[in-house]
């Protein structure tokens, strides 16, 4: 664990590196965009905390607006961190199957509205038995596989069967349906909308099939940062699970309204050959999907990443000298955030606040 906590007022160029910077203006801007986008819509944001790992940032979005008033967490231990930090409405868009974990989730349900996704009848039965014994209610949503090939029911019939079971059992409260999309391969804006609508429709089909059996479907939690705007155009969707929008990643380069808020700052430690600079932030600090460009230096490309160094290259003369600081723009940021213990919050070129990242490593 690292304990880097620079004094507020420290200039960015005086920080020790590598360190994880959060541009406070940018993240506040991003939260306001969400508040504006979802102000008058039926659908609201349910921020995914896997990308931030911080209850502080989650509560900032809830306070700014546009949300359902809660978050989703990738795992139970991440939910525990969020509840501890003051969030009281949690959806785990994932399965909690081990009985020890279900018991923990029931303990948590005494302090927060806990909801979890299911795709299996036995899992629903286990949730019911244990929650009933605890005297709590666990909300369940049916996970629908759209195109990930991961968890989730594969047909309307499966969804209806699980919904009926959940309706009939004590301890569980049937809430709705959920699906996740990852449209990494989209070809242009039109395609993103088309594929986004098609995949979300698969989830809505299950909802319609369940409602046809006379069971109310309160929640349709569908979409993520890729469909953050698409979801607002589809009636029936009640919430969007956006994560990357908060701090930004270049994978989501179409999101012109949002600003890049997280960067890893490094320092050049060697310029061994012409056109090459070695920086002090490597694979461990960034992850293999961590960074592909350097802020303000389009001429620099990222070469090999060693465990603790990054090789920066330039076709012409390398503008960075030993001792120069540089900021790496993340690609897939949630893997990167998970490797850090503190956010260094920056405004106007100086440290304003330092926030711990208590959800780091919470993969359980």
């Amino acid at each position, binding site marked *: 664990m690292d304990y*880097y906590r620079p004094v507020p007022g420290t200039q960015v160029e005086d920080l020790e590196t590598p360190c994880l910077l959060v541009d406070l203006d940018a993240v506040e801007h991003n939260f306001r965009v969400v508040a504006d986008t979802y102000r008058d819509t039926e659908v609201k944001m349910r921020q995914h905390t896997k990308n931030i790992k911080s209850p502080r940032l989650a509560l900032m979005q809830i306070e700014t607006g546009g949300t359902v008033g809660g978050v989703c967490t990738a795992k139970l231990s991440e939910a525990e961190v969020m509840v501890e930090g003051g969030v009281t409405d949690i959806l785990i868009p994932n399965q909690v199957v081990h009985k020890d974990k279900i018991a923990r989730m029931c*303990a948590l349900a005494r302090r927060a509205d806990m909801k979890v996704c299911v795709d299996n009848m036995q899992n629903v039965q286990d949730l019911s038995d244990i929650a009933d014994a605890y005297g709590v209610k666990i909300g369940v949503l049916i996970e629908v596989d759209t195109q990930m090939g991961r968890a989730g029911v594969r047909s309307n019939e499966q969804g209806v069967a699980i919904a009926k079971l959940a309706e009939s059992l004590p301890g569980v409260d049937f809430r709705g349906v959920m699906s996740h999309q990852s449209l990494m391969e989209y070809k242009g804006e039109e395609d993103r909308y088309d594929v986004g609508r098609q995949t979300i429709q698969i989830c809505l089909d299950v909802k319609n099939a369940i409602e046809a059996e006379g069971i109310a479907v309160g929640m349709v939690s569908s979409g993520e940062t890729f469909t953050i705007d698409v979801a607002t155009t589809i009636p029936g969707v009640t919430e969007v699970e956006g994560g990357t929008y908060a701090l930004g990643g270049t994978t989501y380069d179409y999101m012109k309204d949002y600003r890049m808020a997280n960067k890893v700052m490094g320092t050049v430690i060697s310029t061994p050959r012409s056109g090459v600079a*070695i920086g002090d932030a490597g694979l461990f600090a960034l992850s293999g999907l961590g960074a592909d460009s350097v802020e303000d230096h389009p001429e620099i490309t990222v070469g090999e990443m060693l465990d603790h160094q990054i090789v920066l290259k330039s076709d012409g003369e390398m503008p960075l000298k030993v001792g120069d600081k540089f900021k790496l723009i993340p690609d897939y940021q949630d893997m990167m955030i998970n490797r850090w213990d503190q956010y260094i919050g920056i405004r106007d070129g100086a440290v304003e606040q330092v926030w711990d990242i208590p959800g780091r490593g919470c993969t359980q």
Partner: protein
Amino acid sequence: MPEAKPHSHFRCQKKNKDVAKLGMKNTVVLFADSVPTCTHRANLSCHTQISGLAPKRSQHPHLVDSTLPVCYCFSRLLKEGVSLAFPTHEEPLMERPIFKPIGTAEEALDTPALVVDLSGLNQNIETMHSFFRSRSVGLRPHVSGHGSPAIAHMQIAAGGTVGGIMTATLGQSEVFAATGFDDIFLANLVTAPSKIARLCSLARRVNMTVAVDSAANVSDLGEASVEAGVTLNVLVEINTRRDGMGVAPGRPALELANAIVGEEGLHFAGLMTYEGSIRAEGDELVSESKKWIQQVLDTREKLEKAGLDVEILSVGGTHNYEIAGEMDGVTEIAAGSYALMDEGYRTYRPQFVNAAKIMSCVTSMPEAGNVITDAGRKAIGGDTGNPGIPTLPGGEVRGLSAEHGGIDLDPSFDHGLSLGDRVWFVPNSIEGCVNLHDYMHVIRNGKLDAIWELPARGRYR
């Protein structure tokens, strides 16, 4: 209606007053330390049931094999009119991470869990260190291969080493200096003034060795060490196979060595290269290893002709220690992965066993042959490739996402796998994996024997 009394086994002695304070009849009080993990086969006779369900968690480690959780049993009691009371919010309901008592069966640990098999670890250390015990060349364990001071102490105690360790960052060096290591070779460049100050501070307490690849850095280190009144051991890093740091072999290295010798506060200690882990076998491994290491040995000769004493020549790693260790002029080998091993080295280094695994839980089996587990890139690491799953025949890792691991399972194997079952992954890169965890579960004979912290995790600075 059956009457249920609070049973002494359900609570800790210090909590007796709380039970009395509740003053409820027909109530079974369950405390957090007995609720979340105890499982027990139900026996429907209510009174004897309560007695029968009494074991404390520490006496009841067989969690996974039992069929029904305690709370399930108590729902039967509820239906028979017995009410349940739970600890108030002031009671600590859980701790995070969820620690389990020593002696807990491996399968009962919270998942995903980094688990280390002690016998495998000991076997690997014996295999590696016995090679060096009979030779003049020494081993310098690279602690990035496990991140654990406990394992590093085992490595030094096993003999065959130079008596010190290798580290990758200054922050990591500080942690290992504070946990009892007095000879630390930081195989990295330290250039920022604030970091040079930290390095000199460390050098006041332990024997510090550091690498350089530029004359300007030599001059900065020299100035700072004189001011701090310490001596830094400095090696010239030579760039060979990797496109990274280091000066070219030969004349540039000689010039830099001369610059070090000219600094009052610095001691010229020798030469190093990191040729990178060469994933090859047989003759190819030998020729590839010798090709790069020979460049350093040639440079050594050049320096010695110029009258410089090269005490340390550090090359090699887990991938080629037996080849590098036989080359005249090599004084030490820096190796780290051998202790715990990983999937990346498995086929190339069969003399070592996989002692570290990530234990995961099956969370979804949405269709035949498709298994989803709760361990993904954030728990296993995936920067260098997919992990292995040696304990699941017919299984193949389809890929890792951030939070999930997907496995394709050959349906012709009858695994009897169901939700909640455990699946063990061997990480592709052990360094990358331990960088994600704050502690490891040490397992002896299938049971939890110790929890070792990884205090240098995240110390990139």
